[in-house]
C-alpha cells in the first residue's frame, strides 16, 4: 500500500513545496541538507570523527577547510559529525518529550477533575525543581550515557510541553463542538485525538520548533557544569563550549557550531511559520 501510494505522496509533497513561500522553501532545503549531512557524515567528512590531524588551532586552509580545534582535530569534520550526533539526540529527545507531555496534557484537559489535578500537581512538583539542578541530580545519580541523557532531558522537557498542551487544550475542551462530541457519546480518545488535537496542533508545532533548540542549549549548559555528552563524540553544544573563550579575542571559530544550531533553528521555525499560516486558514497574501 505504502509503496503504491508513495509516488503520489512525493508528488503532493513536491507540489506543496512548489507552492510554498520562499522562506519555507529555504527552511525545507536547509533541513534536508542537514539531514543528508547527518546521514552521510562518514562519507562527507575528510577525516575521522576523533582523528587528530594537525596541531591545535590551525587556520583555515585548503587542507583543513575550517581549521582545527583545540586538540588539532579537523573542525569541518567535527561539524559534520556533530550534525549526526546533535540532530539525532535532539530529535529523539524532543519527540519523546512531546509524546509524554502531549498525551498527559490532553488527558488532563479532556478528563478534567481528579486526573487533571493529579497530573498537574505531579508536573508542578517536577517543574518547581529548577531544570538544571534536577538534571544535575539525576545525571550524577544515573551517569551521563547518551540514553540517560536523552531520557532525563525528555522527562524534564515534557513537563513544559504538558503545561502548554493543557493550557491550550483546556480552552478548546470547553468549546461547543467538543461538548457536542461528548454529548454524541464519543470516547475520550476520540475527543482527544480528533476534536482537540487538530485544534491545538499549530501551537504545539510552534513549540516543537523551539523545544528542539532548547535541547541543544540544555546539553551545552550541562557541559558547562561538566556533565554532557561523552568524548570524543562531536556535538555542537559541547563544541561551542570548548571553543567559547576564543570569541573574546574576536575569533569566529565558536560561531561555527553556534551558527549551525542557529541556522537549523531558523530553518525549522520558518517551516513552522509556513505551516501555522496554512493551518490558521488565512487566505491573505
Amino acid at each position, binding site marked *: 500500500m505504502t509503496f503504491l501510494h508513495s509516488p503520489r505522496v512525493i508528488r503532493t509533497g513536491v507540489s506543496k513545496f512548489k507552492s510554498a513561500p520562499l*522562506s519555507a522553501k529555504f527552511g525545507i532545503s536547509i533541513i534536508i541538507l542537514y539531514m543528508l549531512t547527518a546521514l552521510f557524515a562518514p562519507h562527507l567528512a575528510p577525516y575521522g570523527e576523533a582523528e587528530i590531524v594537525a596541531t591545535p588551532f590551525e587556520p583555515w586552509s585548503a587542507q583543513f577547510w575550517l581549521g582545527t580545534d583545540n586538540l588539532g582535530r579537523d573542525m569541518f569534520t567535527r561539524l559534520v559529525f556533530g550534525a549526526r550526533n546533535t540532530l539525532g539526540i535532539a530529535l529523539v529527545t524532543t519527540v519523546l518529550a512531546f509524546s509524554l507531555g502531549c498525551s498527559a496534557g490532553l488527558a488532563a484537559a479532556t478528563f*478534567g477533575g481528579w486526573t487533571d489535578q493529579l497530573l498537574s*500537581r505531579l508536573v*508542578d*512538583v517536577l*517543574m*518547581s*525543581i*529548577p*531544570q*538544571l*539542578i534536577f538534571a*544535575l*541530580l539525576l545525571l*550524577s*545519580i544515573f551517569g551521563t550515557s547518551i540514553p540517560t541523557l536523552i531520557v532525563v532531558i525528555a522527562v524534564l522537557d515534557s513537563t*513544559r510541553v504538558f*503545561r*502548554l498542551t493543557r*493550557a*491550550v487544550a*483546556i*480552552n478548546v475542551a*470547553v468549546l461547543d463542538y467538543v461538548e457536542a462530541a461528548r454529548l454524541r457519546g464519543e470516547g475520550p480518545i476520540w475527543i482527544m485525538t480528533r476534536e482537540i488535537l487538530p485544534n491545538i496542533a*499549530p*501551537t504545539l508545532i*510552534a*513549540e516543537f520548533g*523551539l523545544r528542539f*533548540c*532548547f535541547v*541543544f*542549549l540544555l546539553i*551545552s*549548559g550541562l557541559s*558547562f*557544569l561538566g556533565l554532557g555528552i561523552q568524548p570524543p563524540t562531536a556535538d555542537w*553544544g559541547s563544541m*561551542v*563550549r570548548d571553543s*567559547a*573563550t576564543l*570569541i*573574546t579575542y*574576536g575569533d569566529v571559530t*565558536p560561531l561555527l557550531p*553556534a551558527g549551525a*544550531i*542557529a541556522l*537549523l*533553528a*531558523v530553518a525549522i*521555525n*520558518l517551516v513552522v*511559520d509556513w505551516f*501555522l*499560516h496554512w493551518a*490558521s486558514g*488565512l487566505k491573505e*497574501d
Partner: protein
Amino acid sequence: MESIAKIIGQRVAFGALTLWIVSLIIFAGVQLLPGDIATELLGQSATPETVAALRKSLGLDIPAYLRYFDWLRSILQGNFGTALANGRDIAELIEPRLFNTLLLAASAAVISVPLALIGGIVSALYRNTFIDRAINVVTLASISFPEFFVAYILILFLAVNAGILPSLSDVDQSTSALGRLTAMALPALTLAVVVLAHMLRMTRTSIVNLLGNQYIETARLKGLPEWRVLVRHALPNALGPIATVIVLNLAYLITGVVVVEVVFVYPGLGQLIVDSVQKRDIPVVQACSLIFAATYVLLNLTADVLSIVMNPRLMRPK
C-alpha cells in the same frame, strides 16, 4: 468570583503539598548522590578516619529518615537551620542572595516582557513580511546560542571593546543603587536575550492562530484598523497561553540562571544551590529548593488565574 477564590484556596493547599513532596524528592535525591558532605568537603584528601570524624561532628551518623524529620520539624517552625559546611545560619546566608536573584530576574523581565509583547504583536501585524522575518531570524538566532555564549558576545562588545559596562557583576550590600544598575546591566541583558525569543514567538503564534476566527472577521468588517483588531480582539483571547509562557520564563529567570551567575560572578541563589549540591549540604539545598519551588508555585498560580479570567468559560462547571 467566588469560584476563583475557591480555586486559589485549593491551589495554595496543593502548593503546600507540592513543597513537601519537593523537599522529599530533593532530600532523597541528594541522599542518593554518591558521597556525602564529609567526603566532598575533604575531596581528594579524604581518609576514612577524617571522614568519620567529620560525619560524626555534623550528625551524619544519624539515620537519614530521622535527619529528614528533624529538618521538617524545624522548617515547620520557620527555622531553616544552619549550613553543614560552615555552620552559618541558612536564612542569613540566603537572604542577600535571594534579593540579588529577584532583582536580576525583575530587571531581565522589565526589559524582555514588554519587548516580547510588542515584538510579537508587530510580528503578527506584519506577518510574513520582511519585518516579521527579520524579527524572527534575529530572535531565533539569539536563542540558539547557549547562555554563556550570548554573555561572552555581549561582554566582547559592551565591556571589552566599548568599555561601557563592567564584565563582572561585583555587587554587595554596600553597592549604591546606580552601581547595582550598571553592574547588573550585562547579566540582565543576557537573560533578556535568552528568554525574549520564546515569549515573542508564543505571542505571535497565539495571535496569528486566532486570526481565522469569525469574530476577527467581524471586527475587520466593522472597519477597525488591523492593529486595533489585533490588540483589542485577538490579544485578549491569546493571553492565556502567552501568560503561561511568560510565567514559565519568569520562573526560569529566578530559578535557572546559574550559568549566567557563574559567567558574571553574580552572587545569586543559583550558584549557592549548585555549590551546595556538589558539597551535599542538604539543609542549604533544601532551603534553596523550597524557595525555588514556592516561587514557581506562586507564579504558576498567577498564570492559571489569569487564564481563567481571560477565558471565563473555564469557570463554568461541566
